[in-house]
């Protein structure tokens, strides 16, 4: 059994120190003296330090031949065994404080129940070595246990293992900071907020009523926050091709690496906010099995394939990620009688399906969105299930909406207001392909 790095209590306790400093600083700023009784502060710090040290002392881990064991807990002992053949992804993360000391934490994601184990902290070199080791063992185990294309999770670990073993190949895309910052600023959300705030400010200046000005600051703050978080999490975004997939590395404060095994990609979506379309930019997001289920910022990064890129290049890379040919899928618009239901997007809404050459996947492409246009691409053999919906108005017009269901993630293939028999035929056909490919 091994222990985590001895600096762990310090890095963990660092949070407490920061909290105390911030609290003290705030009191000083507000003019009051810091009048906490010293013994209490010392006692709190000592107790926290002791707790952190004890936690470190009692936490041990061991990489066995087929399981990873983690023992932890001071009062309540907890022993966790993670089956290595269930490991889906191993991520190396470096929070800011850990980065200063060249430490890292290891996050292990498993299939099925979606549990996640964290080893924090080990040295960066150790973390990388552990990642390779875990993935290698997971790969060996799954190589013994089963094969076949449908065993996506296992293939995923295998491909990650190979990637870890064979290293990075070719840089496909690197986002420049300037472009990133500008692009985040001219997304539809921030832009509309800024324009709204500007309008309110103008009106209140003209009318002489200061109330509208009160809106400007919160709007500016919200926009600033959105732009900043987009910028920070995607800073230095690098997409590389590896032996059996793609890998993403990004972050200004917390650098994250994420591998995207091609065979676990469930679909891609190309998003074009209003102004971006004019500038010929787009954003690419992916749904990867077992990754996109987290909805916080980490989920956002792991879903991002390209934060901002010229449209043509983006499409090419998206094709790459899917290993399918989406350029040749002819899109058809909605029937003329559907225009009443979608007056603004009547020229946008479209759906296309490629039959898929033998061996090739065949994809379904849907396009929608008025201000922010999105094109979702889903390989037919990745579809989990299909749904057709018809409301009362659609029924009168003989229309229906087709939805293809995928694992959680940003990709949502929706064919709005299709001809009802076309939608139904498509649903049955796609389901048949999906079922057939699950059988292989």
């Amino acid at each position: 059994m091994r222990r985590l790095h001895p600096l762990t209590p310090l890095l963990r306790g660092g949070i407490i120190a920061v909290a105390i400093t911030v609290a003290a600083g705030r009191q000083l700023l507000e003019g009051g003296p810091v009048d906490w009784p010293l013994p209490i502060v010392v006692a709190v710090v000592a107790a926290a330090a002791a707790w952190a040290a004890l936690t470190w002392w009692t936490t041990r881990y061991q990489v066995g031949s087929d399981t990873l064991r983690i023992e932890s807990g001071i009062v309540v002992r907890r022993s966790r065994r993670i089956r290595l053949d269930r490991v889906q992804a191993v991520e190396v993360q470096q929070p800011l404080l850990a980065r200063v000391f060249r430490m890292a934490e290891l996050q292990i994601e498993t299939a099925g129940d979606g549990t996640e184990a964290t080893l924090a902290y080990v040295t960066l070199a150790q973390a990388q070595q552990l990642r390779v080791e875990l993935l290698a063992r997971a790969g060996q185990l799954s190589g013994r246990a089963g094969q076949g294309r449908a065993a996506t999770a296992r293939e995923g670990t295998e491909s990650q293992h190979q990637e870890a073993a064979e290293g990075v190949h070719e840089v496909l895309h690197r986002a420049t900071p300037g472009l990133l910052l500008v692009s985040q600023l001219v997304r539809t959300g921030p832009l509309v907020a800024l324009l709204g705030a500007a309008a309110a400010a103008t009106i209140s200046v003209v009318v002489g009523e200061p109330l509208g000005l009160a809106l400007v600051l919160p709007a500016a703050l919200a926009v600033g926050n959105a732009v900043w978080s987009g910028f920070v999490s995607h800073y230095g975004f690098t997409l590389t091709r590896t032996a059996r997939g793609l890998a993403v590395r990004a972050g200004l404060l917390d650098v994250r690496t994420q591998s995207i095994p091609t065979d676990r990609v469930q679909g891609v979506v190309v998003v074009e906010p209003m102004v971006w379309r004019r500038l010929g930019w787009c954003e690419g997001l992916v749904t990867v099995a077992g990754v996109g289920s987290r909805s916080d910022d980490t989920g956002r990064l792991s879903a991002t394939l390209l934060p901002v890129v010229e449209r043509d290049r983006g499409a090419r890379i998206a094709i790459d990620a899917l290993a399918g040919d989406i350029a040749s899928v002819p899109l058809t618009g909605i029937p003329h009688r559907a225009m009443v239901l979608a007056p603004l997007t009547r020229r946008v809404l479209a759906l296309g399906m490629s039959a898929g050459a033998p061996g090739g996947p065949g994809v379904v492409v849907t396009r929608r969105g008025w201000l922010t246009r999105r094109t979702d691409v889903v390989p037919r053999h990745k579809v989990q299930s299909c749904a057709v919906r018809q409301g009362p108005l659609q029924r009168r017009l003989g229309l229906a909406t087709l939805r293809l269901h995928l694992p959680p993630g940003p990709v949502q293939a929706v064919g709005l207001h299709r001809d009802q028999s076309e939608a139904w035929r498509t649903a049955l056909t796609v389901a048949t392909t999906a079922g057939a490919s699950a059988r292989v």
Partner: protein
Amino acid sequence: MTANAPDPFAVPGSVWSRVSPRLATLRRVEMLCAAMLLVVLLVVLAVMVPSTRPVVAVAVGALLVVSAYGWWLTGRQVAAWGWVERDSDLVVTRGRVWRRLDVVPYGRMQLVDVTAGPLQRAFGVTTVMLHTASPSTRARVPGLPPEDARRLRDRLAERGEAQAAGL
């Protein structure tokens, strides 16, 4: 849908299996219980605060109308549920005004749930629900007699195993 207008969402070569009409009975009982409870509360209110009587009378009347509508609607809704077992997928349809059809390949099923609460058990109606890796999949067949539900689940599980590989 009238008999002479063909169903635009028919499954070629199959007819819909329909759910048990006892599901309608169960839902009507549930609805009436709720309505009765409300009526009792309203009557108590009317007895204790005489000034509210006109309002209560109107409310009870409205409740009766709504219940009657619900009675009729439940029958139509339950009659609209249907499913078809195709070679490689299960097709479920529901709803009349807002129609929804789900097609779930057997190979994509992660698990099949069979559930019946105490009230459902008393009425002999059981729900079979399919789950895939997508949370949006909503394929549910309610109102099956317990024996049929078990058989359907076993058939689905068997086909799912035969058509899925690995995880």
